[in-house]
């Protein structure tokens, strides 16, 4: 059953998203709201990882060898300044979207498998991810004009 593949995928990407939120919080600690919110969202991702753990165990996790471009880009070079801040939020948004579509895929499979417990777990995580995307988009929309039109860096 290939469900294990996808569980492995989202399990790993949630862990990486947690790391990414922490990294952005650290880099942009001068943006106080971002610092606090990113650390909160990192904790959410941690909890998704532990929520998934029993299912990963049940279905068996498959080793992932897909290159994780999004994550690598984000961590490749530290960015600072307003533009670096906007780019980092942009990358978080892409990573959170990856999680979002993974939840959709797994929820579909969980329904087919009549696995109520997995479906409920995924629904909960999915709602968190939706809220993360909402916040990221709100924050990006706020920063974009000032960064691109007014700031020097």
């Amino acid at each position, binding site marked *: 059953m290939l469900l294990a593949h996808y569980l492995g995928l989202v399990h790993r990407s949630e862990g990486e998203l947690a790391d990414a939120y922490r990294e952005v919080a650290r880099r942009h600690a001068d943006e106080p*709201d971002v610092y606090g919110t990113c650390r909160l969202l990192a904790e959410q991702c941690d909890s998704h990882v532990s929520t998934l753990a029993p299912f990963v165990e049940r279905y068996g996790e498959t080793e992932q060898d897909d290159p994780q471009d999004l994550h690598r880009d984000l961590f490749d070079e530290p960015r600072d300044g307003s533009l670096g801040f906007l780019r980092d939020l942009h990358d978080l948004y892409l990573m959170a979207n990856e999680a979002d579509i993974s939840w959709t895929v797994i929820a579909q499979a969980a329904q087919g498998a009549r696995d109520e417990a997995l479906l409920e777990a995924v629904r909960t995580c999915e709602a968190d991810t939706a809220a993360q995307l909402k916040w990221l988009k709100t924050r990006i929309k*706020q920063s974009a004009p000032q960064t691109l039109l*007014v700031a020097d860096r």
Partner: protein
Amino acid sequence: MTGQSDRIAHPWGARTPFASGTRWPERTDVQLEAGIDSHDVDRWVTSACVLCSNGCGLDIAVKDDRIVGVRGRAADRVNHGRLGPKGLFGWQANNAGDRLTRPLVRRGGELHETSWDDAMGRVVERSRALLDEKGGSAIGFYTSGQLFLEEYYTLAVLGKAGLGTPHMDGNTRLCTATAAQALKESFGSDGQPGSYEDVDEADAFFLVGHNIAETQTVLWSRMLDRLDGPKRPRLVVVDPRPTMPAREADVHLAIRNGTNLALMNGIIHEVIANDWIDHDYVDAHTVGFEQVERVVQEYTPERVGEICGVDPSAIREAARIVGAADRLVSTALQGVYQSWQATATACQLNNLHLVRGMLGAPGRAVFQMNGQPTAQNTRETGADGDLPGFRNWDNEDHVRELAELWNVDMAVIPHWAPPTHAMQIWRYAEQGSIRLLWISGTNPAVSLPELHRIRSVLERDDLFVVVQDAFPTETAAYADVVLPVALWGEKTGTFTNADRTVHLSERAVPPPGDARSDLEIFLDYADRMGFTDRNGQPLVNWSDPESAFEAWKTCSRGRPCDYSALSYERLRDRNGIQWPCDDRTPEGRPRLYSDGHFYTAADRCEAFGHDLVTGGAVTEQEYRAADPAGRAILKAVHYRAPAEEPSDEYPLRFTTGRTVYHFHTRTKTGRARQLQAAAPEAWIEMTPGDAGRYGIAEGDLVRVESRRGAMEARARLLGLAEGVVFAPFHYGSYGTPNGTATAANELTVTEWDPVSKQPHFKVAAVRVQRVDGPENPS
């Protein structure tokens, strides 16, 4: 007449007890300069008090073109003649010897007197250069909760449609942003549901983080007169400090600061568990009950007691009082708004009234209070992070209405994101993308969090700072241009209190020297900048307070805050009329939502709402998909521990607050002899138990340190919640000897509520250290 010493010692004055359903008795408070009595007064000029959000009606006594005192207006619906100590004595600041009377400009590092033409010319020159080089977004405005409606509206129009900058906010961000936000989240729009008359009818009061005795003395007098009258209402107080209301309370929940939401979730848990629910009201007039029920499920009194540090049986008793009350009046202020999870807590208080059907009827009201006297107008007119008339920045039709009203291209009005909140304006200035910061009527060098950071922003070479004030404040010291202004009593205008009561305040005396009203300054700026509409006509097409008011009436027509049937003439005839005041209700409306119909319809609402955890904005499409269409919105989230919790290094919880004798940073009250003498310097409060652990005794000089800074003040040992340290926030360097840091905001954290963006002045971790023994009385 009440003697002055009395009113310092007894801020609430003599009791006039009354029973539910009867009229609050009148009591006319008067204060005149020594040696003057009523017969000496040349004239009494109609006004209202501007030293808190209560907005008590008063007359200003004038002799020889000088203000010599005040008298409460017995006929005024707000105060029935009473005045608090700030109102009785605060007017003396108008006559202070250090008023600013001439514009100042910085030359060679020093401020020098100059002409208006030179000062305004510099502001205009810098504005034009920035507009050309960077656009309107390089200019920011940080205004006040103390100007008049006409001034705010003029500022809003010149900022949004003239310069086209999204960066405008008031210090109302520090005081009432959460009130406004919670009203929007629950009811679809800003606007206080209740009326002060509801105090007269209530059978229970629930004060959450609201030291009303010191912040709104006259409203507290009204409650006290009920508490001392027949059939005493029950009183529940939530406050870490043993405040005057806490001492009067049937139940005082002295919770740890930062745990409000856990407590409120616990109260709702009990209300649901005991089925103190108005099911018909919930079914007919709300959405979201199941979500609230799900969230509060785990907040048993035992668990909440553990989090908050209070006895579970006290939580049960408090919930029983508010749950069983037939006429419940609840209020919240800074203990909620400036604390952790502010908007979520304030919403949960709205939820309490919604699930109990306690809204829109006599004695059934929730007050999301205001701090400052004219904060309501900053919000209404859009001089803060809102659009004028409670319009929704995310609703194209609302923005189009404004564009048509002002006859400008819609694209000029910034509406691609919410107007920038104050903390973000300061952040942009810190980063150098805002290059001109225009500060009017407020003193951020004392009132904002983490003051060393604020000073470093104000000191930036690339930031042009304009300060518009009546006094040489701590902030004015950093200005490039200082514009001297007329104070209350020296100009005419209207303002609106926390229960939607509009007062006209007339000019009683001329301002000192060359000082001008804020309105004159904004009009002059708009004129010099040459802001025009699409037809090339002046954008700001009014010239004095009354014509500004008329322009505002048009802007407000049909909106929740409808002023269209008000006029200066009507206010001169009867001062103190509540909005909405339109052709249907020309006498004003005492209560909103009496019919259970809220402003939540997608086309009408002021905001589409937010995720209360992160502040992520609900999109228009999402909102329309589940349009509440007039039903109130119940929403709840879980408690989380504050970001900065006590640690080994910083083991105590710090909170800040107010004294009855001072307002804000004491710019006025520090210049009123009796008030300054009553509370001349900062102090800190801690429990005897905590003090004992650090070898601190009553009156010792104590140093309080956080990760950000330190202050020193003398200790008062009181029965607050264990582990909590309190300091008043009023004390900057003004009147402080030897340059000791006494500002509580040296310690506070740069952090804000995710939804209302109100800073967290009431959650920080600190440590304390004894510096010296009590003052030598010699």
